[in-house]
């Protein structure tokens, strides 16, 4: 662990300006991932800017009928918030499928988006890792890659550089719900559609997301439609709690009778970001619910997937999980 300085920010502007003054500083909220990374010497911020006192810890209604989750609302408070639980049960269930009760009590919604991969090699300085040290190589490709990506690992040159996955459950639901991330940076405020917040590794795997230097997440906006009638979050993992997803599926359907009018499917544990293919989801529009059509969609979603040995089972597991999640969302069983 490095020595570091500490600043307690007293407002969003203060926090952002502190960070602008010291680009090697990091924001800290719940710290449930950052502190671990610092202990392992993976993250070496020169300063922690503590944002816990910023007024970003409330859940409020938005003008267009949605909800705004302040960046500092804890994962636990979000999952158990009455409006979230009623109108966005997919999000509640996804949050509660993640981590442990103790971690959810500390971890914040903004921090959840910022958590880094659980790739074993990323955490162990003894091994090369392109995400930790660009250009050093990826140990996972030929190594122990049980929890690693099978989708979206391509690069412009064709040489795979990183097969890490994003570990969040919450983000899989946020991707399916098409949330919006609100950020404040040195150049002011902007919003980022959730699908554009996290990124694929390409040839810059050190970058997890599209935040500009010094930007701070202030809130996550949920649109009005929470798909509260027909949804499922299915998480498959190596034990029943406190394990990251091998594969997870957030499925949400709008139904008129048995006919699908809208569908969202996001996958966790398979890529560097929550995995969505809107054009595949569109294949469901106008179709009747049923395992055959779900299987077709599952096959299409996994199109182009590649296994690396230990994780090759995910190709089949993901398909089965998609069919199951869609069938649960459609209440077929």
């Amino acid at each position, binding site marked *: *662990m*490095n*020595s570091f300085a500490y600043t307690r920010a007293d407002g969003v502007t203060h926090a952002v300006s502190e960070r602008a003054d010291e680009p090697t500083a990091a924001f800290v909220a719940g710290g449930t991932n950052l502190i671990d990374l610092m*202990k*392992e*010497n993976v993250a070496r911020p020169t300063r922690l800017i503590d944002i816990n006192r910023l007024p970003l810890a409330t859940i409020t209604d938005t003008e267009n009928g949605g909800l705004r989750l302040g960046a500092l609302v804890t994962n636990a408070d979000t999952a158990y918030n009455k409006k979230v639980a009623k109108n966005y049960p997919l999000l509640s269930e996804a949050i509660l499928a993640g981590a442990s009760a103790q971690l959810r009590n500390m971890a914040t919604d903004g921090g959840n988006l910022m958590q880094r991969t*659980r790739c*074993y*090699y990323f*955490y*162990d*300085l*003894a*091994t090369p890792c392109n995400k930790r040290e660009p250009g050093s190589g990826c*140990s996972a490709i*030929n*190594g*122990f890659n*049980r929890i690693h990506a099978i989708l979206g690992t391509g690069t412009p040159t064709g040489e795979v550089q990183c097969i890490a996955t994003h570990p969040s459950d919450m983000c899989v639901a946020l991707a399916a719900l098409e949330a919006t991330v609100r950020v404040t940076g040195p150049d002011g405020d902007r919003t980022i559609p959730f699908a554009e917040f996290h990124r694929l590794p390409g040839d810059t795997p050190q970058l997890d997301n599209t935040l500009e230097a010094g930007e701070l997440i202030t809130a996550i906006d949920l649109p009005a439609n929470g798909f509260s009638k027909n949804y499922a979050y299915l998480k*498959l993992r*190596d*034990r*029943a*709690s*406190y*394990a*990251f997803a*091998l594969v997870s599926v957030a499925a949400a359907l709008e139904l008129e009778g048995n006919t699908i009018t809208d569908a969202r499917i996001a996958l966790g544990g398979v890529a560097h970001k929550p995995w969505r293919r809107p054009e595949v989801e569109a294949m469901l529009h106008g179709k009747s619910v049923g395992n055959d059509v779900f299987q077709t969609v599952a096959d299409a979603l996994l199109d182009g997937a590649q296994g690396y040995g230990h994780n090759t*089972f995910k190709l*089949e*597991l993901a398909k*089965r*999980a998609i*069919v*199951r999640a869609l069938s649960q969302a459609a209440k077929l*069983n």
Partner: protein
Amino acid sequence: MTQQTYIGKPINRLDGLDKVTGKAKYAAEFDTPNLLHGYVVNSTIAKGKIKKINTQDALGLPGVIKVFTHENRPKLAWFDMSYKDQDAPPGSPFRPLRDAKIRYSAQPIALVIAETFELARYAASLVTVEYEEMAHQSDLEANRHRARKPASGMASLLKPPPPKPKGNFEAAFAAAPLQVTGEYVHAVEHHNPMEMFATTVVYEKGRNKSGGKYTVYDKTQGVTNSILYAAQVFDIPFKDIRVISPYVGGGFGSGLRPQYQLFMAMMAARELKRSVKVVLTRQQMFSFGHRPATIQTVALGASAEGDMTALYHSAVGETSQFEDYTEIVVNYGGMLYPPENVTLDHQIVSLDVNTPLDMRAPGGVTGISALECAVDELAFKAGIDPVEFRLKNYTDRDPLADLPYSSKELRECFRQGAERFGWLKRNPEPRSMRDGHNLIGWGMATGIWEASQAAARAEAVLLVNGKLRVSSATADIGTGTYTIMTQIAADTLGMPLEDVTFKLGDTDMPAAPIEGGSWTAATVGTAVKTVCEELAKKLFKLARKMPDSPFASVSFNEVVFVNKMIQLKKDSLMAVALQSVVDSNGGAAVRQISTGLPNMLKQRKYTRSAHSAVFAEVTVDEDLGTVRVTRIVSAVAAGRILNPKTARSQILGGMVWGIGKALEEESVIDHQFGRFMNHSLAEYHVAVNADVHDLDVIFVDEHDDIVNPLGVKGLGEIGLVGVPAAIANAVFHATGKRIRQLPITLDKLL
């Protein structure tokens, strides 16, 4: 008034309150003024040499005192013998900082000493190392052709190699109408007790040869083991060193050998003449011993009627390049089943890994997990219910040693366990039971573990206030040693529990061996019983000498110790209070030290084992492969149960461990680096609460006056031994798939 007795009662854990309120102090929690902190640097390669180790950046930080490496470490004991501990396998024990050679990945290579832990850790991150790398071998499967017989040594006394073949396995197997053969592969596991390994050495200046006095707070399963190691390696006379370990936050075998933080803290304290604390991190908990990876082959033959005729069980386990770690893996089939034709074989392969280390039910759970799956397969082939099959092939004698069992209520375990589980309702057909997507499976297995006893010493003192203090330098690794020893002492001297204190974990106390192998209740329990009986005799002698003693013409056999009194058996009014006895001792406490010894002459005529029958129910999602263990019933015959509450907890812990071993636990080594990669509790999966459902423990009555005077067999291992096989057999019954690799993760069932 009848005397209250405590043995056999569900007494609450006496150290429980101190543990849950934080009063119980562990090795890392002891403090002293001007304490220095050490942080260990570990190697990043598996094999090679340190060319250069750069410590100047670390040393440049204010508050960093010293960086110890192989280049500047002090002179230490020369011979391997000095580094041998009570659990050392044959070979040359690893010596931290001995030389530039790297023998395994994460080997400790430097110790940074600083004023604070944080500073030491930061400074350690500035130590850089240049290596000369050599090709390493860490893959058991790829190296199994190099399997060889292990060397024998002192350790072979407790872990004898498999006996010579009996009959003619090949011929009998070839002729057997029913045959099964399978290869079983088990992953490496790490103990991962909750408490991190830590040593706090409190140094006091002195002009003696060793430069002072050392009080060592160590995480260990045996203070006697730690003191022998530290005294020999650092050439410190026993009078100048004392090791204390009142509480241990879990051991599971990891504390059976002195770990390197003890060496590091002692070395630094002796060299710097300062008090030093060294605490390992969770990641470093993966840098010492582990349960070895194994590959086993089991082949069984039976008659058409299901009578077993041929048994073959071989195991290949990994070890390091410097010690021959062995365990008893393959002998159990020969002890449990009657075939006349038996071949057993155990070999090891040296790899560039650290030496494996005994881990809960070492060998036993490995071998039984293979054997009992094979037996299940054979029963299925014979078309016989698995319980019926085991009863059909039941032995009252140990066929391997050709000795009777001192006691064996396994039949009763089958009966009571099956009844509690509802086994009779089982449809024998695999995939016959389901609930929606979930296939339901019922499986069972037998467990067995040796009932051992070693020698131990204990002290009993009747204090001037009439209370009893008993002590022995044993350990309580969470098993309930404090509680059961207090119960034994209270009953032996007829005292209420609140007037009796039992102390342990201090080398100023009479010596006891390491706490392992399920032998502590028998070993230390016998010492406590013996010392209390001998103190009783002493007290009786004193009582006889008292003025107007009612016992003047009475012999010891005619009195009993009850209600804090010595009483005449035939006339309870003729009594002397223990308080008066100690009062008559000229104001001094009455003290006795005794040794509890196993009665070898009696024991050697018998095989002494605890047994269990384990029944498990699983659900397996047919599409997704996820397994849940919804119920386990374990019926245990382990002699006398001293405390049903702590005993049940031990068995429950074993069952939870069994769930982890069957389905989750695996230290994955990346052979690119020869390094364990999932070195955290987030990625190394042990069972969590959500994995644990209905667990039921039955203790079957079992009387045994051969094992030891208390009739106890020990419970540390038997709770685990049969569980993984019962779960694997249940998975077969649910799915029709025989998975022979542990852990059974969902991908194996897709």
